[in-house]
């Protein structure tokens, strides 16, 4: 087709440097806002995990006793009932065996 088969065109848009920068700036800002939002929610990803971890360690710091062997109730359990760690009764009540589940069961 030759170029002569139309007579009219749209007046081409003339954009000055300034306008170009402004328009591009606005568009970039519009695209940047969601990106910034996504980034901020993504970096906060582990905040709830860290909060739970921190407060559980806080529970440790608050505790009057901080080592298991100093737990008086545990000592009482062994004295009145369980005997001592790895005792016969301990083995019966507090220890277990595992099964190989790679063979068909049930």
């Amino acid at each position, binding site marked *: 087709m030759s170029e002569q088969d139309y007579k009219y065109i749209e007046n081409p848009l003339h954009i000055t440097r300034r306008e170009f920068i402004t328009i591009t700036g606005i568009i970039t800002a519009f695209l940047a806002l969601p990106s910034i939002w996504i980034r901020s*929610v*993504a970096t*906060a*990803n*582990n*905040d*709830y*995990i*860290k*909060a*739970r*971890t*921190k*407060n*559980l*360690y*806080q*529970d*440790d*710091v*608050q*505790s009057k*006793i*901080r*080592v*298991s*062997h*100093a*737990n*008086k*109730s*545990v000592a*009482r*359990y*062994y004295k*009145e*009932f*369980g005997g001592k*760690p*790895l005792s*016969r009764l*301990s*083995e*019966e*009540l*507090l*220890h*277990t*065996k*595992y*099964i*190989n*589940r*790679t063979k*068909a*069961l*049930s």
Partner: protein
Amino acid sequence: MNVIAKTYQKGEIPGVIAINASVCKGCDACKRHCPTGAITGMFGATHSIDVDLCLSCGQCLVNCPFGAPYETSDAVDTVISKLNDANVTVVGIIAPAVRVAIGEEFGMPAGSLVTGKLYGAMKKAGIEIFDNNFTADLTIMEEGSEFISRARHAVFGEKGENGEPIGPLPQFTSCCPAWVRFVETQYPSLIPHLSSAKSPQQMAGAVAKTYGAKVWGKPAEQIYTIGIMPCTAKKFEASRPEFKSAFEYQTHINKAKSETYADVDVVLTTRDLARLFKKMKIDLAKEQDYTPEILFAEYSGAGTIFGNTGGVMEAAVRTAYAVITGNELTDVEFKPVRGLKGVKSASVTLKDSKYDKEVTINLAVVHGIARNLKPVIDQVLAGTSPYHFIEVMNCPAGCINGGGQPIQKNGSSWIEAIRPWFAWK
């Protein structure tokens, strides 16, 4: 389910988690959180769970953005009916991680520590308190002693007191039922490496229905134990048929007669307990702090940190140090095992007072089986593992981020850097 579950014993819950096909969008997010590749279904198609591979850990459930996975077993109404039965003493075994999460279900900020309020709410609901931290301390006594005997056997050739066989090193922790099932289904050759100690929940059930029966002055069959756990795999664990040691004790030693009962009757997740409180019109956030008198509510700081990754190891180090050297640690905080690094390791050199010799113990802590376990386990399989004691927790960051915890919309279990992962198959 048209396939017959092969990796379950009779009586076990065959998979606690299932996916609701009409909700699933096939986005593949869950697959990347699954420790075993149990989730099948191509990208774009609805997904489903292969129960034989599934560990019931619930990570897919808490990480699916669209809420497609659900729990197949729900005991909230059963527990309420037991609470209304005057003949039954309902004992709630509360895991460490519950106290820093349940507040979230009642509008409190993430991670609020609400031990007192939780005790108060449980008392109001009529649940006897059995803090699982107590049994966490008990676990340390048992598992720590077991480790010391394994280590002394390996280093000094020490024999068992009653001539019983002593397991090999490295010793793996056994608190996490998803991890135990992982070994049982994938690496049965590692079973001797697992500590024989039950998980704190199962110890609690056994103690509550034997020693506890004496303490409360109730017959064991009238005690109804509920594990209140951050964990869906605990529902599976409680259903394992071998966990009837209290029943066996009562019938064989005390010659009591009754129908069989499990050590832990049912398990409620943190979410379940919150639902139970809401059904009973108890607002935990408004409860008064309450301190129970019972000895089962006494716990040490070492017991409570079980809920964090590295917590079991740190607690074990505190006690093992004292037992081996005969001295107490001055600073009990053992920082190398804390934090969110995938695999944490540390060495402790101490003097064994019994043999008057220096020993060095290498420790490793793994959390997030899906992303971090492989290299550590490969070393153990190859016999080249430098470690003597390895803690493994299935869930990233440990039980505080377990599959039964309140679902926080503003986060996910992804601990590593945010990287794209383009699904295709």
